[in-house]
């Protein structure tokens, strides 16, 4: 399976600021996804990062709040904009290989 890395691994941010999370894969992949995992909860899909076009957002998530870039087949970024304490979560990048999704280590975000 692909090796996925994320940066930063964790951060503490002030409300009103923005944080960009990077996801790097060691091989070219077609499908990349961003998930949110709130404390003690399951995973919720934010969006599918499409290479060369706008991301596809799930219900409840909008581009202005979570802009996503996908400049090539090995890299994507997720920005959490104008953060509030409710955005404190783990943000996970994943890639798909023949139906199966593999996850990065996650970025643990705390918003004060």
């Amino acid at each position: 399976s692909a090796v996925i890395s994320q940066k930063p691994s964790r951060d503490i941010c002030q409300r009103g600021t923005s944080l960009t999370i990077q996801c790097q894969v060691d091989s070219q992949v077609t499908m990349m996804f961003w998930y949110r995992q709130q404390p003690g909860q399951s995973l919720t899909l934010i969006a599918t990062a499409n290479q060369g076009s706008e991301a596809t957002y799930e219900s409840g998530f909008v581009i202005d709040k979570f802009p996503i870039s996908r400049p090539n087949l090995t890299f994507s970024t997720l920005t959490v904009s104008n953060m509030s304490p409710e955005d404190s979560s783990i943000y996970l990048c994943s890639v798909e290989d023949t139906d199966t999704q593999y996850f990065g280590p996650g970025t643990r975000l705390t918003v004060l």
Partner: protein
Amino acid sequence: GESVGLHLPTLSVQEGDNSIINCAYSNSASDYFIWYKQESGKGPQFIIDIRSNMDKRQGQRVTVLLNKTVKHLSLQIAATQPGDSAVYFCAEKRHYGGSQGNLIFGKGTKLSVKP
């Protein structure tokens, strides 16, 4: 509504015993299922998957059983070890014609292994 859920939110077992983690799904159109293990501070790790044309699949110390009649999925871990302590998630996917649906996660079961 459609959902993927678990019967037990927590499970405590003795080291060396077998563990069984259960998952119920409500949509018979789901045709692909995955079990993930998530250790504290880490991302979910793929354990094993199964497609709807099978009812059992075995891996190393793990077995997944699929009962489509009652829409039930289980993960069996043989000879549970302290390193198996984690939260386990089931996930389902539905394929619509030639399109792939999204992966939908269950709530998770925390497995604690007592030495």
